[in-house]
């Protein structure tokens, strides 16, 4: 059992009753309905992904709340936060209620909606942030782009702080991106494509940190990908500011070398960066500048990927590979201990969202993930539960596999099979 909050790293028995963790100790002697023998496995608080695109409503051909939640369960996630860049954009409480209702009916895991910052993500007027907060959003975000009007963003931050919800900031200045489709640098030069420079991300990271400081909002920087961004967040934290940052598994698992061959499954935003950036991200994970690992699970249809690189959609799926990639590239490479990994995939996300999860303490809801850290396998996109198969990791050998996913005491995923209630 691994629980960062209780600082437990050892062999324990866990008793779950009525969806609640009833007891945690060396040996529990009780007649249970089902006993899981988890010897040699990690038993962890359910993983939480703060950055997922479920595409519903509007883009059901890419993903739905149902299929996305199945992918999450398979990947060991018991709670996922879904981004509002759907069609229509989640910018009022009615749409929040819709997502919640669909999730209630069809999702295998907990789904927490995120509301947009501005109406229609147009960057002009504030969304109904207050009404959405009442309806249960966990954060606001303009993900997919930045609110370029700094004055408006500042007002949103001030307003959001009234409801104590965090602002998730996607950092990208489009005037610096130009028509870029991959990391600007030597590789872009080699393959002859327009680059996305690091500064296009970093100027907005810097701006948002400054605005976060002046408004006092809980600021969370999404998917940081560059050395400079890591440094900006590190400095802000040293100053004691309320800022957190996430990194996506693909950004520490691959470099822009992967773009060679023009496979659009290597196209995402922010793009795969240089080896130097990857090193900095790993360093940032190690010194806890980056306290959260999130997938930015972004499903796209094959027709949006098997086409010209410039025309292809940005984004890759990540729910079903995140844990394995993290174990392979972080734990196996001694960047993080297993405990630190679980902290970044469960405890810290729960703290950011202000939800009562991310621990296996007695009395808490029994969201539990059981992982075999030693099982090796080859990623096969055709086995994905997600509707979309846009992953650059097809055929890649990884280590670490989810064996059980338990949500509110119910086993929803067990040894490769879904215990489907629908």
């Amino acid at each position, binding site marked *: 059992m691994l629980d960062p909050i209780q600082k437990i790293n050892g062999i324990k028995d866990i008793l779950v009753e009525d969806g609640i963790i009833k007891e945690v100790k060396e040996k529990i002697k009780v007649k249970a309905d089902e006993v899981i023998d988890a010897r040699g496995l990690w038993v962890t608080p359910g993983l939480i992904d703060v950055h997922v695109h479920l595409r519903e409503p509007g883009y059901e051909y890419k993903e739905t709340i149902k299929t996305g939640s199945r992918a999450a369960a398979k990947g060991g996630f018991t709670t996922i936060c879904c981004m509002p860049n759907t069609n229509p954009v989640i910018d009022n409480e009615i749409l929040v209620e819709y997502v919640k209702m669909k999730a209630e009916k069809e999702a295998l895991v907990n789904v927490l909606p995120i509301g947009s910052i501005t109406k229609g993500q147009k960057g002009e007027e504030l969304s109904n942030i207050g009404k959405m907060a009442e309806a249960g959003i966990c954060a606001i975000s303009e993900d997919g782009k930045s609110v370029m009007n700094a004055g408006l963003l500042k007002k949103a931050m001030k307003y959001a702080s009234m409801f104590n919800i965090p602002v998730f900031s996607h950092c990208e200045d489009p005037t610096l991106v130009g028509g870029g489709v991959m990391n600007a640098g030597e590789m872009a030069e080699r393959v*002859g494509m327009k680059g996305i420079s690091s500064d296009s991300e970093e100027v907005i990271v810097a701006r948002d940190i400054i605005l976060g400081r002046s408004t006092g909002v809980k600021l969370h920087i999404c998917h940081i990908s560059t050395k400079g961004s890591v440094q900006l967040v590190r400095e802000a934290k040293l100053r004691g500011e309320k800022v957190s940052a996430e990194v996506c598994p693909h950004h520490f698992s691959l470099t822009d070398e992967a773009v060679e061959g023009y496979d659009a499954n290597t196209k995402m935003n922010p793009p795969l960066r240089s080896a130097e950036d990857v090193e900095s991200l790993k360093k940032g994970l190690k010194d806890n500048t980056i306290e959260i690992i999130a997938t930015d699970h972004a499903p796209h249809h094959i027709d949006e990927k098997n086409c*010209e690189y410039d025309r292809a959609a940005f984004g890759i799926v990540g729910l079903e590979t995140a844990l394995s990639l993290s174990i392979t590239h972080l734990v196996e490479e001694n960047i993080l201990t297993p405990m630190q990994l679980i902290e970044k995939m469960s405890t810290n996300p729960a703290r950011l969202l202000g939800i009562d999860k991310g621990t296996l303490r007695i009395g808490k809801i029994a969201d539990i993930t059981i992982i075999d850290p030693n099982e090796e396998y080859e990623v096969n996109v055709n086995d994905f539960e997600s509707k979309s198969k846009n992953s650059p990791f097809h055929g890649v050998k990884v280590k670490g596999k989810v064996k059980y996913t338990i949500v509110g005491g119910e086993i929803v995923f067990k040894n490769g099979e879904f215990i489907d209630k629908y």
Partner: protein
Amino acid sequence: MITNKDILGIRNMNSDEILQILETAEIMKKRIENKEQREKILKDFSIVTLFYENSTRTKMSFTLAAKYLGANIVDLGVSTSSVNKGESLVDTGVTLDQMGTDIMIIRHSMSGAANVLARNVNASVINAGDGVNEHPTQALLDLFTIYEKKKNFKDLKVVIIGDITHSRVARSNIFGLKKLGANVVVAGPSTLISKNMECIGAKVTTDIKEAIYKADVVMGLRIQLERQKGGLFPDIREYRQMFGINKELMKYAKEDAILMHPGPVNRGIELSTEIIDGDQSVINEQVKNGVAVRMALLYLLSERRKGNEDINSKWKNVRSYTKDKWNKRYIG
């Protein structure tokens, strides 16, 4: 000898392949000049040109090259085809594939488009220019022209001047020239040239005089007038005066230097009219060589498709050169 199914770029070719194409082009050039020698050796081949971007010389050059070899060549006419109804590149390619096309020649505004087409069709794909990535046949004809004039690539100083960042011609030439042992210097305003070019082997400078100094080959590039609106340089007048190549600048080059340009030229902007029509200019020769190189490429690709490895046996005059001799002649 052509290793791959497709000709997508010079970057993934080796020097042997490049030399073989140049070698074959030499023979083909004679066939253009001497009508009796135009054998219809490609009469069973069907070729489609698929131009998503405008072109005069590349398309005409390919078309005539194919006709001189007796191939069936048709143009898709992108603007009048189903592409206008929104048909995707992949679907268009697969459709042409089903019709029995042997070779597809594609020009596209997006980098890597030829690669995407190539991995979705059985036909051989020739990249006739993709975005800012590569224009391999232009580079091959440039290399052939340089070979004809200089007989050697080893330690040649080749300078390319102009909008390097947006030039697939520059990039393909750099890849090719480096493989054959030449030194390449690229020069232009700092907004149209990236320091990262050094990673593909070119020396980067913004000093035109230094770049041209003692050059064997001076290559100008077309400056796309719309770049000015994108804020990459202030105006044409300033560009001409600071980066245009004229007679005065050419004096810094070696006396026997040649002047090249892939065309079409903006007369009086990147090159002065005086030097375009001057003695050092080989711009018209490049056009003729373009047909020869494309004939060579079509022929070699067709032989590869027939699975005939020993293509040299067809032409005794080619066989007489051993590989060593070729290396000596071209690479020094």
